[in-house]
């Protein structure tokens, strides 16, 4: 057998459906296409997602990768006796949130937000879980390693992209994702802002942020 023959259009939706059903991992549109002899699968994916919407099984996109999963509202029926999900320490959940909302972020920046040193094992646990990866080094003195989340993180937490992180727009608008120094400078700047860093100042920050 030579290179797979391109799949005919009328079979394409079925082929994409079967491929994703059989796959053991989420697949990008490119990977599906490569598997199916180079067919354009965008429309088929959209059609399938619409077909499955509202069913007990759904087709979802997470970080540009697609997979089938059970509908969230049926969780109570499917939850198994032994939970498959790794229990994270409070420190690990906080670090994960900080990485997700601030990425890419260095360890020093994580520690500045948490006010404590981060145990070596904390980031390791998140990397072992496949949710956090090293994303390079920051080009500042010392060239610290910086961390970011992975596609598996989005898959696990049911996020189509980082924009879906809960409350990220509000946090950004409130300046709560900016470093303390920036927020301090903004608060101490004009007399208006200084008047109420608790009030109008923040709202102005929100406006300017959302205009971005």
């Amino acid at each position, binding site marked *: *057998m030579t290179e797979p023959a391109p799949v005919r259009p009328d079979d394409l939706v079925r082929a994409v459906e079967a*491929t994703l*059903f*059989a*796959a*053991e991992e989420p697949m990008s549109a490119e990977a599906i296409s490569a*598997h199916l002899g180079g067919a354009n699968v965008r429309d088929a994916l959209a059609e399938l997602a619409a077909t499955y919407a509202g069913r007990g099984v759904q087709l979802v996109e997470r970080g540009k990768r697609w*997979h*089938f*999963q*059970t*509908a*969230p509202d049926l*969780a109570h029926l*499917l*939850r198994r006796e032994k*939970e*498959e*999900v790794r229990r*994270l320490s*409070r*420190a690990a*959940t*906080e670090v*994960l*949130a*900080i990485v*997700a*909302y601030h990425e890419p972020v260095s360890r020093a920046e994580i520690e500045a*937000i*948490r*006010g*404590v040193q981060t145990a070596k094992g904390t980031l390791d646990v998140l990397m072992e879980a496949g949710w956090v990866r090293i994303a390079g080094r920051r080009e500042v003195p010392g060239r610290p390693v910086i961390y970011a989340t992975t596609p598996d993180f989005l*898959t*696990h*937490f*049911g*996020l189509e992209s980082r924009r879906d*992180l*809960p*409350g*990220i727009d509000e*946090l950004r608008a*409130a300046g*709560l*994702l900016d470093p*303390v120094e920036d*927020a*301090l400078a903004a*608060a*101490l700047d004009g007399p208006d802002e*200084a*008047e*109420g*860093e*608790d*009030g109008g100042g*923040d709202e102005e920050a929100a406006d300017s942020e959302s205009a971005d």
Partner: protein
Amino acid sequence: MTDTPAITLPEDDWQGVATVAAGDEALYLELDGWEGPLDLLLDLARRQKVDLRRISILELVDQYLTYIEQAEALRLELAADYLVMAAWLAYLKSALLLPRDEQADPSPEELALRLQLRLQRLAAMRDAAARLMGRDRLGRDVFWRGAPEGLRIDRKAKWQCDWFALIQAYGQVKARTAPVVHMVRDRMVMTLDSALSRVSSMLGVNLDWMEIRAFLPPHADPRLRRSALASSFVAALELARLGKAELSQDEVFGPLMLRGIRA
């Protein structure tokens, strides 16, 4: 900024200590559970049950110092960073209460604001983490297919070999393994005696250097030529030994030159 730090709230909004008093014991037992002074401060600030932007830094400082003092009274061992924070907060409190010193830089209000901003950020991430953990998580709330068939790509070799390679390989097998048979054939030879007489007579008529091949019989059967060459070479050595001929060869395997010596 006004004289009173904006972050300080009216007294009547403050209701912290009463609730904490009952929980003293629990608080101490939890001390190990806090991840550092900022964590403890955030917990205390949240007990004020107001928006973090409106907490009273002064009250917060008092509460923190109270707990540290009580912990010391109970001889609980406190990590150094809790004590460092206590010292810093004590300084902050005094600076906030004293008449404003224009020279102070950074101003106590700025320090208080910085602390407040840090608490806000930590609180924001703590909330975000909780919301994140509460999402529909794979393996807990939503599930993969239980037994996917899996996609496999089998790599299969497509072997290539051409006709010439095939018969050449066979030829070489046969050649490599063919029994080597040595047969002594009845072959044409030139004897040493005849070579001696032929070479010495030819040297007699020619004074120049001559290549040894020139002494071989012309138009000879190829099989005879090889024998003639060998015999003529031995004859040349014999003549040289007798002082009747000179031999010269400029390089290894080069042409062997021969010349007669007049007696």
